[in-house]
């Protein structure tokens, strides 16, 4: 049982929730940029929340099933069609043998996840099926999908649960919460205030490694170079340009720029769906409030 790729889209990769425990050896974690969409889709399909799906970026794939299979296209609305019938995002469908799926391009959001019941069963590499392009690791031979690829589908373990879920895509300005640090002391109070008040613009240089933003530049008081330290998910680096880079799923493990703040886990999926020229504003939380936000987020993920 498999999904056969007829058109791969611009950048489609296999992702689960990422490769954990190897950052000490220099491996990026990778994993779905929008973990919310992946987890909700997997729960709907009765999958383990970590099951692997295809992550499409801006443009979609065309593919067919060689056996009956339940599927969900979660996240951005990519104008999906099941044979010739339009489908809704974040909704469960049951395809028959030979059925074709086609996605055009993002009408909302930036990424769409095609998840199937049983998950895509590519080999586990160091505990994960996620693709890390830079390291040619995981997924399908460590690369993005291409025409003619055959993605094996795993065994169905549980029945599907429900029919659809709510997953609004960002529209207008995206508000993300962030905690100052680990190097907020490299910045003046004015810089911190500017960072937490201005509206930033997402630039076209953004990718799975980092979201590059543009706004009124910050000026750190000690220069922005530090002796490299470890990088947490959502770290906001400020290089010499004074323009923020939010480090995402494929981020490097260590870095030498001062990090003014760290975006909370529960808001990273909003950034994952931001497109170039979308607006982003940061709201300040403390670390305790951020942990509270994570608790709420995890509860939300389980709401049917």
């Amino acid at each position, binding site marked *: 049982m498999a999904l056969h790729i007829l058109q791969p889209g611009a950048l489609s990769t296999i992702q689960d929730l990422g490769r954990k425990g190897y950052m*000490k*050896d220099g491996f990026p974690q990778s994993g779905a940029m929008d973990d919310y969409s992946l987890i909700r889709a997997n729960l709907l399909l009765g999958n383990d929340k970590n099951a692997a799906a295809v992550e499409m970026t801006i443009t979609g794939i065309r593919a067919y099933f060689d056996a009956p299979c339940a599927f969900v296209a979660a996240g951005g609305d990519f104008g999906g069609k099941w044979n010739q019938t339009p489908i809704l995002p974040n909704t469960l469908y049951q395809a028959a043998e030979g059925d074709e799926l086609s996605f055009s391009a993002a009408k909302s959001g930036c990424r769409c996840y095609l998840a199937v019941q049983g998950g895509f069963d590519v080999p586990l590499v160091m505990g994960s099926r996620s693709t890390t392009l830079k390291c040619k690791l995981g997924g399908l031979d460590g690369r993005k999908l291409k025409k003619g690829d055959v993605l094996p589908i795993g065994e169905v373990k549980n029945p599907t649960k429900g029919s659809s879920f709510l997953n609004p895509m960002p529209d207008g300005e995206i508000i993300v919460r962030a*905690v100052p640090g680990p*190097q907020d002391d490299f910045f003046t109070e004015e810089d911190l205030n500017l960072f937490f008040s201005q509206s930033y613009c997402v630039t076209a240089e953004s990718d799975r490694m980092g979201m590059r933003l543009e706004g009124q530049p910050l000026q750190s008081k000690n220069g922005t170079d530090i002796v490299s*330290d470890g990088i*947490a*998910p959502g770290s906001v680096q400020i290089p010499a340009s004074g323009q923020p880079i939010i480090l995402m799923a494929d981020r490097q493990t260590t870095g030498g720029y001062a990090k003014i703040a760290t975006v909370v886990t529960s808001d990273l999926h909003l950034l994952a769906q931001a497109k170039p020229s979308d607006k982003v504003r940061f709201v300040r939380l403390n670390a305790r409030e951020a*942990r509270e936000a994570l*608790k709420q987020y995890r509860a939300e993920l389980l709401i049917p």
Partner: protein
Amino acid sequence: MTETYRLLPCADRAVTVEFGNTISEENSAKVAAFTARMNQFSLAGIEEIIPTYRSVTICFDPEVLSFSELEKTIQKAAKRQARRKQEKKRIFILPVAYGSEFGPDLERVASCAGISPIEVVRRHATRIYRIDMIGFLPGFPYLSEMDPTLETPRLASPRTVIPTGSVGIGGKQTGIYPMESPGGWNLIGRTPLLPYDKNRTPPVPYQTGDYIRFLPILRAEYERLEKAVAAGDNIIPWEEG
């Protein structure tokens, strides 16, 4: 005992334990001892422990491991370090063919230092280097205890492709490119062994705090080892020091 570190929060799922803000033997020793203690505790809920020159970043799940419990463990691990016994060193031996197409920047490093290429090789290969940090790429070791006379500025314009196993000098440090990658370090040689092999367990054999020694080899030996690696012999030898 007074606390010798700062706790820097990274939102909800990580914290950086900072022992200093410079590259020094003292900071590296603190990082190594602290990391070893944290690994011994092997607390449920810890997802990553990332040691660097001067700090350790810990990623955790706050719903499995509360922050206050993690804080207490960090305190314990930092206190115990002074009493930790000196453990034996693991020294990994990397055979390296220096110069020619293996190290196209050997001449540049030599002229920068005002010495002969062979003297560069001697100074580079007679040291035992502590791995201060692994980062940038899987298995890329940052080795800061290089002979200071070999310091060479990074290339003005980085190469787009550097072959796997290349040994480079970037400023005051030396290191190894474990996979093909762009990069701006001066390439002085290449090892036929694979510092990173996804099909080996573990894929990267050494860790921060281990040591590396370079063993100069000639082209014939490079080619012999290259064939052995291609045939599946992917072990990087190490000795106790």
